[in-house]
């Protein structure tokens, strides 16, 4: 999509056809459409949370503790009488925000590093590759736990930790893609004409490596949402009383016998939204794959 706004003459000639093929393929894939619809639904719900006719997500009601789903509380109430539906809606904000922001961190740091490594090669590449390996060597949850332990648990620190641990994927992807683009004739010609590295990268490299990065970002949002929920479940993400699907499950597991609905809905929410991103990402990948025409 960035490519469409690029002034590069070579690109504009081929783009309209490419884009219509993309749209055609996306439309032809029911799975991708379903995924997109699920994602859209949750995004709309999360955005509209303040104006939806639901009760305050942190308002407690001691007369309505652990009530089974009813007309007044469609998803039931929790251990201190808060409305589960309302907490789900507000929790969607936390989940989506965490997914998008942590992936944004990973992309904004990872892609420039990867492009640099691929473009300059040599020492730059060696140093960046070692750092990438070191980052890869810390499983995300362990890294997140370490940061939460030393920086203090909060949603912000959880997002930083998730973003940092997702960064290596983007470094590697951008590096590989850049190396591939660099062997193309048009890059060689641009170089021969004397284009400066920055102009060359922003005009020819970035638009060309954009599609695979978009696919990876979509799929990584899915993992990042699970990651945030996991951390909040452990008590290392969103802090109470602010609602988050993960922390709702953390409490719910203590009331499984008395109030199973407390565990059912938040988990189903995570599952659905992650499934949506996965389906949509898989569809994007198939539609943007240049190999099969």
């Amino acid at each position, binding site marked *: 999509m960035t490519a469409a706004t690029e002034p590069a003459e070579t690109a504009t000639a081929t783009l309209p056809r490419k884009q219509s093929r993309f749209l055609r393929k996306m439309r032809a894939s029911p799975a991708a459409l379903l995924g997109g619809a699920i994602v859209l639904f949750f995004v709309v719900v999360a955005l509209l949370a303040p104006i939806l006719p639901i009760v305050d997500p942190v308002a407690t009601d001691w007369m309505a503790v652990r009530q089974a789903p009813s007309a007044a509380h469609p998803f039931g109430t929790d251990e201190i009488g808060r409305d589960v539906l309302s907490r789900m809606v507000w929790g969607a904000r936390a989940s989506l925000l965490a997914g998008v922001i942590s992936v944004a961190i990973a992309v904004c740091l990872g892609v420039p590093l990867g492009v640099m490594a691929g473009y300059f090669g040599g020492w730059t590449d060696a140093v960046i590759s070692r750092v990438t390996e070191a980052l890869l060597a810390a499983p995300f949850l362990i890294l997140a736990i370490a940061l939460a332990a030393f920086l203090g648990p909060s949603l912000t620190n959880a997002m930083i930790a998730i973003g940092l641990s997702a960064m290596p994927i983007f470094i590697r992807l951008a590096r590989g893609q850049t190396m591939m683009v660099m062997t193309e004739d048009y890059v060689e010609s641009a170089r021969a004409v004397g284009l400066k590295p920055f102009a060359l990268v922003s005009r020819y490299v970035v638009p060309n490596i954009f599609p695979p990065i978009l696919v990876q970002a979509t799929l990584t949002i899915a993992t990042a949402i699970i990651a945030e929920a996991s951390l909040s479940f452990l008590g290392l993400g969103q802090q109470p009383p602010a609602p988050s699907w993960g922390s709702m499950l953390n409490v719910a597991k203590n009331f*499984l016998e008395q109030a199973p609905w407390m565990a059912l809905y938040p988990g189903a929410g995570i599952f659905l939204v992650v*499934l949506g991103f996965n389906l949509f990402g898989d569809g994007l990948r198939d539609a943007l794959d240049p190999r099969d025409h």
Partner: protein
Amino acid sequence: MLAFIGRRILIAIPTIILISIFVFTLQHLLPGDPILVLAGEERDPEVLEFLREKYRLNDPIPIQYLAWVGSALQGDLGISLRTNQPVLELIGEKLPVTLQLAVMALVFALVIGVPAGVLSAYKKGTWIDWVANVVALSGLSVPNFWLGIMMILLVSVKLGWLPASGYQPFSEDPLQSIRTMLMPAFVLGTALAATLMRHTRSAMLSVLQSDYIRTARAKGLAERVVLVKHALRNALVPIVTVTTLIFGELLAGAVLTEQIFTIPGFGKLVVDAVFNRDYAVVQGIVLCTGVAFIFMNILADVAYRVLNPRMRDK
């Protein structure tokens, strides 16, 4: 081969140094005087001064780092504030529990994921393929701690088939130990089974298109022989690589699984350490998992070469 392994280990050294710097830096992220944190409840000035000397906090930071690495190399990762046990000893105590969980989960993942992948590739485009793909994608999308909670609700609370928690050491009562681990291992194995299924499927799909499969079929070999002896054997290369690489996922998943089923393993140790502000334990665990992960990566590279003779000359 030996030269290759040697080179891989040499390349790993800078990575390990970077990890150690990261872990060391962690303690400097703490707000306030680190010694007050390290000392816990202790406020006696003499003790504090002793600790300051011991951790060389009066020295410049590079010297502190070298001293810390020096003792880490000798197996001294500090002392747990909580139990007063050496950190390495604590990790050693909890590791077998997590290993049992991880191995059982891996068995689940292999037993479910690989056959499902083979079948799905073989029946590409049929309803079997479709079902396998839907199940796999769901397995990847379901948060395993929620799956665990739902399994407890169904299997333990409603049906009463398996215990919801409680850990039995394998050495004391192997049968009971496996029984209590069944559900956690299944929960931990689900996402891995899904990953393995997807990799097996794509590996099998590309192998099944190759000439030697057509030749094997043309020879009149039984379909089962073609599938298992010719196709799967070649598809194994990426499968083995993926299996060694999901170690990190397995470990992260174990942290959550142990929390849900209250299994006293490695993951429970690190989460408890965070809440008890037992920093030495957290640092020790991050360092150990980092180094272990690097060795798993080397193992994956080596396995890849052993299984794939074409790679050896390169």
